[in-house]
């Protein structure tokens, strides 16, 4: 029983975390090549050699950082990604933590991610990192409502706040079709949580790397891994909430989950390479004035469909 309920889920989460982060790095390199910014070198080896390089590089320090917070922030971000993977079911029975309120728990992971990213920018006590951290809070506080709306939308037909129930409710029709606005909105949340591509307000080029601009060596490696792992965790949750999780013909459930996660990851990385970085002010306005009303609409739609069924 210990093996079933403790060791197996634990291993699953850890393996997904590390392999997933690696796959994100590989996929992103492939995307970069497709978008005209080839990196050279072996696509499969490059993430690993880069990791090895960061392990050998010395860690930087600033003059008077908040040491504990600075070193804790990347590790906490990684831990949050692990929690995200823990609530995501691989099949009807294979899930690390099948909490009754796992949808809300994922919401709190999103909120806590904002805290951790802010802390990463704040604790270095340097100008560019500070601006990056504060910019991210503007984004983090804006996407959280959108995420709440679309996730409540998927909870309606499931009549539950449990991700396994959410998948079970998609037996007839996946939520991506039943609630067509949900997934696109949720993908934007994903880009925001990992400050990826167009929503990279925290670690942007105009801030010379933003919250990471003063970080080198192992802490930077953990930060990069955590960011990629969070993207994986997000794709897992998106798969669960909108793409029917383990449901699908022919293949076994967990395999379907992997296929769908890869599809979500590809779309996210594609968007990341395709779109320019949003201006922070414009981003906040866009979230509140355009996307929030759209997520209202998504919820009303979801409600109407749930009643009609």
């Amino acid at each position, binding site marked *: 029983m210990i093996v079933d309920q*403790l060791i197996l*889920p*634990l291993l699953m989460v850890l393996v997904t975390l590390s392999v997933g982060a690696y796959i994100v790095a590989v996929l992103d390199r492939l995307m970069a090549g497709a978008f005209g910014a080839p990196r050279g070198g072996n696509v499969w080896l490059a993430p690993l050699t880069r990791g090895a390089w960061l392990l*050998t590089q*010395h*860690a930087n*320090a*600033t*003059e*008077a950082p908040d040491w504990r917070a600075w*070193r*804790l922030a*990347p*590790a*906490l*971000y990684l*831990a949050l*990604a*692990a*929690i995200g993977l*823990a609530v995501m079911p691989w099949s009807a029975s294979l899930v*690390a*933590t*099948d*909490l009754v*309120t796992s949808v*809300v728990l994922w919401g709190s992971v999103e909120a806590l991610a904002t805290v951790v990213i802010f802390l990463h920018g704040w604790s270095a*006590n*340097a*100008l*560019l*990192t*500070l601006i990056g951290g504060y910019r991210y809070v503007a984004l983090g*506080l*804006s996407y*959280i*409502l959108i995420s*709440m709306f679309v996730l*409540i939308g998927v*909870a*309606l037909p499931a*009549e*539950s*706040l449990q991700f396994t129930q959410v998948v079970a409710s998609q037996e007839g029709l996946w939520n991506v079709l039943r609630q067509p606005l949900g997934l696109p909105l949720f993908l934007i949340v994903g880009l925001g949580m990992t400050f990826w591509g167009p929503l990279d307000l925290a670690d942007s080029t105009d801030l010379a790397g933003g919250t990471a*601009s*003063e970080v080198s*060596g*192992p802490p930077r490696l*953990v930060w990069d891994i955590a960011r990629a792992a969070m993207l994986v965790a997000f794709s897992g949750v998106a798969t669960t909430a909108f793409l029917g999780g383990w449901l699908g013909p022919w293949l076994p459930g967990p395999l379907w989950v992997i296929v769908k996660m890869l599809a979500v990851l590809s779309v996210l990385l594609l968007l990341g390479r395709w779109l320019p970085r949003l201006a*922070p002010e414009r981003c*906040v*306005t866009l979230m*509140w*004035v355009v996307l*929030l*009303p759209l997520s*209202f609409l998504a*919820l009303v739609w979801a*409600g109407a469909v749930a*009643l009609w069924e």
Partner: protein
Amino acid sequence: MELVALLLILLIGLGAGLLIQWLPMRHQPMPTWPQRAPFLGGGTPDSHAWSRYHVRYYPMTLLLIAFEMEMMFMYPWAVVFVEKGMMAMMEMGMFLAILSVGIVYAWREGVFKWQ
């Protein structure tokens, strides 16, 4: 058992994150003071970066707190929505309509722009 698994996953994630940093950094000496100066492309700051930072989006954060407070009511509502049917729909419609007024008003007053 689930909670134990969740706790373990949290601790292992955190531990791994700290270990990857700590192991290689054990023997590294503290960088020199010039290296520790903040990077400004060769420039220097007058002061520490920590300061009374002017957050340009402060009205938005207050708005969010009010909004989020009521969103927390919606999770339990979602669970009984199908069971209660039209009544739940109407109630939430009313609730959201009230709050939309707040958003529209805030937008008209330019709250989502940098102050």
